[in-house]
């Protein structure tokens, strides 16, 4: 449900966005949300309304061949700006009286909603690596092999969500920065993190020793690997030159030192709902991983 709403909720800006994007040559039409006031004039299927956008700016708005529009309606549609005579025209209507609206982030457009997938996936990846490390510490303290299995399950989840965050980020980069991969410090740091955790699984798999020794060695590696996670995920991209938000000393919109999120309230609500949903999905995957591995171990002679 949350995923469907994250993708289907319309993105809309105001008159200022339509004018700016047109003058910059970025887009000929811009999605806007307007509240239609009284009709000022009407002729040849064209009605001129006095309209107010979502930021309270009032402008004259032409609506050609949109006969169903009536005064008092709140509509989302594509708007063009004519710089010659400073007029706005609504070319189509995609939604009327929307309950939820996402903000138009200039330069991102529809891509802006990717924040609702990319950021929650990164958060859950961090949580997964943290859980895996706690399990590894428990293994070293209690010497119980069930914690090795739990650590592997959590780290596998972390690896999966980091990969998904990298893929969504890469798609975002393609349309915002021009290429899928351009060795930005953010991209490089996340690739290094992925390799560190791939090495964890290779180490656990390839060691030729007793199960207990393999588990303890892998646990020590996992704890050391986690030390790099905050550095590679949060610190490095913020202290280096990066196109990613938070780079070049700029304050990142979600994770920053001020502890405030600089994003639209609706974006913020859906972002945290998706964090919870992906965290539940991670927990479920982790549980399945443990149960499958336990069933496998029960049927494999070397474990009995």
């Amino acid at each position: 449900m949350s995923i469907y709403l994250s993708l289907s909720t319309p993105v809309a800006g105001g008159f200022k966005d339509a004018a700016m994007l047109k003058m910059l040559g970025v887009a000929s039409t811009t999605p806007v949300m307007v509240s239609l006031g009284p009709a000022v004039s009407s002729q040849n299927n064209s009605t001129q309304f006095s309209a107010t956008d979502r930021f309270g700016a009032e402008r004259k708005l032409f609506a050609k061949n949109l006969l169903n529009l009536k005064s008092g309606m709140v509509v989302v549609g594509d708007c063009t700006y004519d710089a010659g005579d400073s007029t706005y025209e609504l070319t189509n209507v995609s939604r009327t009286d929307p309950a939820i609206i996402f903000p138009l982030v200039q330069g991102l457009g529809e891509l802006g909603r990717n924040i609702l997938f990319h950021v929650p996936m990164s958060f859950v990846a961090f949580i997964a690596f943290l859980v895996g490390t706690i399990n590894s510490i428990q293994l070293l303290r209690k010497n119980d092999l069930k914690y090795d299995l739990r650590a592997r399950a959590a780290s596998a989840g972390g690896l999966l969500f980091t990969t998904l965050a990298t893929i969504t980020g890469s798609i975002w980069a393609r349309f915002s920065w021009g290429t899928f991969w351009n060795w930005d410090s953010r991209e490089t740091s996340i690739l290094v993190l992925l390799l560190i955790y791939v090495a964890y699984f290779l180490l656990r798999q390839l060691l030729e020793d007793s199960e207990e020794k393999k588990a303890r060695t892998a646990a020590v590696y996992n704890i050391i690997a986690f030390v790099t996670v905050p550095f590679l995920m949060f610190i490095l991209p913020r202290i280096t030159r990066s196109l990613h938000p938070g780079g070049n000393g700029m304050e990142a919109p979600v994770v920053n030192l001020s502890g405030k999120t600089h994003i639209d309230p609706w974006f913020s609500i859906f972002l945290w709902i998706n964090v919870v949903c992906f965290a539940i999905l991670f927990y479920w995957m982790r549980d399945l991983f443990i149960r499958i591995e336990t069933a496998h171990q029960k049927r494999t002679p070397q474990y009995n």
Partner: protein
Amino acid sequence: MDYLQDHSLYVVAIIATVIWLGVFIFMMRMSNRISKLEK
């Protein structure tokens, strides 16, 4: 085709929801099969 172009947002949302629903059903079935194995 016009319908798909005019409602592209819904088309993307529906496809993504179906994929996630597929993942959900796959995991549900996997969970049930493991439950049977565990008994």
